[in-house]
Structure formats: C-alpha cells, structure tokens
C-alpha cells in the first residue's frame, strides 16, 4: 500500500506530515518511508542513521572518435542540444541528454554506443527496526528528477506499507511520485493561496483517480475557503495543525513532534488510522 504526501507548492509542511505519519505507523508495523523530493530531500534530517548508497544512472551516448565522419546527423537529430557537431568534433552535454537513444539510431557508421551517466544516488537506512528510509538525491544541476523518482519507486515493493514524500507542485516530477498510489494526502494552508494551489494539485490527483485526503497546516480556525472546498468535493480533512511557534521551532530543529510531544501523539495517530482506512487497508 502506497500513501503519497503532496502539496501544490513548497513550504506548506509536507515534510512534517510525512515524518510524523511514518513515525506513528512505525510504532505499530513496518513502514517504508520514501523521499521522492529528490531536489531537496530532507526526511533524513529527522531520522539519522547509517546509510548505504548506490548510484543511479541513465544511458548517454558515447562517441567513438576514430570512426565518426562528422556527418552531422546526430546533432541534427537531438532535440535537446545534448550533442552538437562542430567542424572538428562532436561536443556533448550529458546533463542535457534525455537518454532517448535517437542519436545512436541515426548515426550512419555506428560510432555511437551508450555508457551510464550518474544522475544521482539512492540512500537507504534503517533508523529503527520497523522503519526503512529510502532517499533519492538528485545530482546538483541534473534535470532528471522524474527518472530519479522512478528509480526510488523501483526500490519499493507493493506489499510494503510505503509513505512517499512527493516533490511540491504539479511538475512532471510530482506526477511520477503520485501515479499509482493508493492514497494522496494533500497538505495545504488555510489561505486563498493555499486554496488555489490545492485546487491545482487536486486536478492532477483526480486525473490519476487516486483517493484524496487533506491536512490543513498553520490553521488558525479562520479559514473559509479550504474547508468549504473540501466539503464541496467531499474530501476528508484528516488533520488540522495549528499555527504555533513551538511547532515551528521544534520542526526547524529536526524534532518529530508526535514522538517528542505527548499532546501531538493522539491527533497524528488518528490521522494515521484515517489514512490507512482511506487507502483501503
């Protein structure tokens, strides 16, 4: 069962929800927590322990200079400017390459083969016997967030209970993290901006036909828009986290509030139960 935590934009408290949900569930059963926010992974800050790493690669062209006749075909083909043919050489930009394989197909003399290019790494750790953490870390400057997220998801078994932290927004990368999940928990703020971003991402989730629940963060009980939107769309609001300096402070210091603050244990437990139910457990 896969539960994905997402938000229409960054800074809504998505991390808080993922961290606490995973922690609470792990007190009862084995949980896999997958950080798919590969451009800025930060779940590991809350669960520090020894990590094992492996590289993630994509195939990029490898050109055999001795046989290349500088015909220009590969450079004309490549839509992404990842290789260009100059007067005396073929110049490559592996970080622009989308690994489509087209250049090796068009080369008339078979000078192009493929080699693996590192786009990032996957880190795995077991901060607790019942909590397994998988983190995707995109290499700085790489454009391959979607491929990186696919690699993280390959590590996950559909038999496990998995909490995924999706990248914010409605980019292709966010869609990679959402597709095929059993429940999507959307984290938002009770402001017009929060509502607007929520509506955008809700559209996307609907497209994938995934059940949705909402968590309202920085709640001050004055909201009108977000809650009425949820009512209209019959989206359950499974948790409201108040606007509270103390929470902001603890969260900023890498603390897990549902573990360190008894007051918070109960609401997060209820949210966890609710999530499992909505995901069809």
């Amino acid at each position, binding site marked *: 069962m896969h539960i994905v935590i997402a938000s*229409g*934009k*960054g*800074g*809504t408290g998505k*991390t808080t929800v993922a961290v606490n949900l995973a922690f609470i569930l792990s007190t009862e059963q084995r949980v896999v927590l997958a950080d798919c926010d590969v*451009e*800025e992974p*930060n779940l590991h800050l809350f669960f520090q322990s020894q990590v094992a790493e492996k590289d993630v690669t994509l195939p990029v062209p490898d050109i055999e200079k001795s046989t290349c006749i500088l015909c220009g075909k590969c450079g004309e*083909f490549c*839509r*992404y400017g990842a290789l260009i043919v100059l007067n005396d050489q073929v110049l490559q930009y592996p970080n622009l390459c*989308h*690994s*489509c*394989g*087209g250049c090796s*197909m*068009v080369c008339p003399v078979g000078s192009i083969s493929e080699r693996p290019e590192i786009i990032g790494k996957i880190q795995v750790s077991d901060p607790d016997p019942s909590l397994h953490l998988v983190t995707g870390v995109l290499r700085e400057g790489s454009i391959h967030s979607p491929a990186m997220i696919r690699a993280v998801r390959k590590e996950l078994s559909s038999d496990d209970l998995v909490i995924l932290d999706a990248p*914010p*927004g*409605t*980019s*292709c990368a966010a*869609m990679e993290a959402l597709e095929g999940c059993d429940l999507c928990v959307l984290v938002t*703020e009770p*402001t*017009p*901006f929060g509502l*607007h*971003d929520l509506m*955008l*991402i809700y*559209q*996307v989730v609907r*497209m994938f036909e995934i059940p949705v629940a909402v968590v309202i963060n920085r709640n*001050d009980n*004055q*909201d*009108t828009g977000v809650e009425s939107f949820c009512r209209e769309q019959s989206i359950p609001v499974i948790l409201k986290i108040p606007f509270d*300096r103390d929470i*902001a*402070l603890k*969260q*900023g*210091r890498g603390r897990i509030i549902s573990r360190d603050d008894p007051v918070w244990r109960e609401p997060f437990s209820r949210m966890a139960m609710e999530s499992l139910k909505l995901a069809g457990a």
Partner: protein
Amino acid sequence: MLQVAVVSGKGGTGKTVVTGAIAARFSGSVVMADCDVDASNLALLMMPDIIQTEPFYGLNRAVIDPKKCVLCGVCADNCRFNAISVSEKRVDVNQVHCEGCGVCEFICLAKAVKLVPYICGEVRSGNTRFGPFIDGKLNPGNGNSGLMVHTIRKKAREISPDIPLVLIDGPPGIGCPLISTVTGCDIVLLVTEPSSSGRHDLERLVTVCKSMRCRLVMVINRADLVPDGTHDLRVFAKEESIPILCEIPVDPMVVQATRAGVPFSLSDSPATRMIQNVVEFIQNELKEE
C-alpha cells in the same frame, strides 16, 4: 525602466504577499509580472481583469496519423519513455509521458508520426487597480517554465513602456526559471524567513544571483517567529554584504488582508510600516534612473 524581482529560494516565505504590498504602494507607476508559473498566486491578491490570453507552446509531442499507421508497434518498442501504447486497433501517444524526442518519427517506416507543437500553458495579461498585470500558467506535468518566464517578462516590458517600474514575483528554487527571472534585473529582493530549513536554499540562491551580477537586498519576514534564526540571517546578510531593508513581524493584519484578497499595505499596521522602507528604497532607485 527599473526591474525588481522578488525571490525567496524555498516556498512559503510570503514572497507573493510582499510583492503585492509593494505593488499597491506604486499604484499607477508599476507593471506587475508573476513569474512563479508553477503556482501563480499574485492574481489572487491583485484581482486583475484579464484582457488577453495567449497559448504557450512547449516541447513538441508526437502525433500518429491513423490513416498511415500499419500498427506494427515498432515506435512503441523504441520509445524510451513508454509514451506509446499499441492495441489491435490503434496506437496512442500519452501526451504527459512523451518528451518529443523524435525517435518514433525517425523509426516509423510508414511515415505515420509527426512532431507537432504542443500547447502546455497560457500567458495572460490585463489590468488591476494598481497597473498592468501579466502572468502565466503551465498545465500540470509540463516543464519549460524558463521559457515561459522569458515570455512573461518580455510582455511586461512591452505592455506600457512608459511605466517606470516592473515588479516581478519570482519562482522558488534556483533552477532555470529563477535564472530567467533575475537575468537583467536591476534589483533582486530576497524575502527570507528565520526557519533553519530554508537556510541552505538561501545560500545557493545568493550564489546564483551573485554569479548573475544582480544587486541584492533582503527582507526578513515573520522575523519575530524564531529569534535565533533572525539573528543568523542578519549575520549571513552582513557576511554577504546584503542590506536588510526591513524585518516584518508576524502581524494578524497581514493574514486578514491576504485572506480578503487585498495587499496588506493598504491599511496601517506594523507590517505596513516596515514595508515603507522597501517602498522608499525603490523610490530612491527610481529617482536615480
């Protein structure tokens, strides 16, 4: 023409609210451009009357002509993005997964595939009670926001060339859209917040802006929320020689005004008095132009 970009590194620092508050104080002499194209929120504050909406084209997409296609499936076998599905009756290209690489077009012997421009969003322009307004919206799952930012900025410069100030609400992050936003701006205003999680993003943002030779100034938002955090930001700003124009306290007025869909600087409050410093700074720059 003075171009000022408001940026923040990570999301959620109140960048848009600050942009709106500044814009409201330059009523009649400002063009607003929302370059945060993945979550364009400035319109919710400025309430523009949209006059024109234009389609925005991104990467090409493959389209298959069913009259020519012989259903051989070779294209699907060679598409590395799993974007093509073949059934007994038809071949479909998934528009979300297709990256427009052109492999299918090359490989299809029946010449049934064409790459065509694909509308991946729209650019809108209109008027607010404070001045002209431009923004853009990408459809979900589409990249290419850098090019869209470029399009929006170009429109902003051209829509009323006599207006002295272009105020840009920038995107989060430090990627291509951010670079397109700050390139050629006269001033980049960093809106920061004293929580530790945004610090790393801020450092990377400053590095990028400096490498683009941008002039940086800073505003600390919700400055009284985490006092040590604010102190750290002051030290950081000093090390980087970035002037801090003001520190905005947590102010219920800001939340209320935002909720009502109006810029908070239209009524008096502690936050408004702070924004005044930014307003005066920009006024001085305009005088020097």
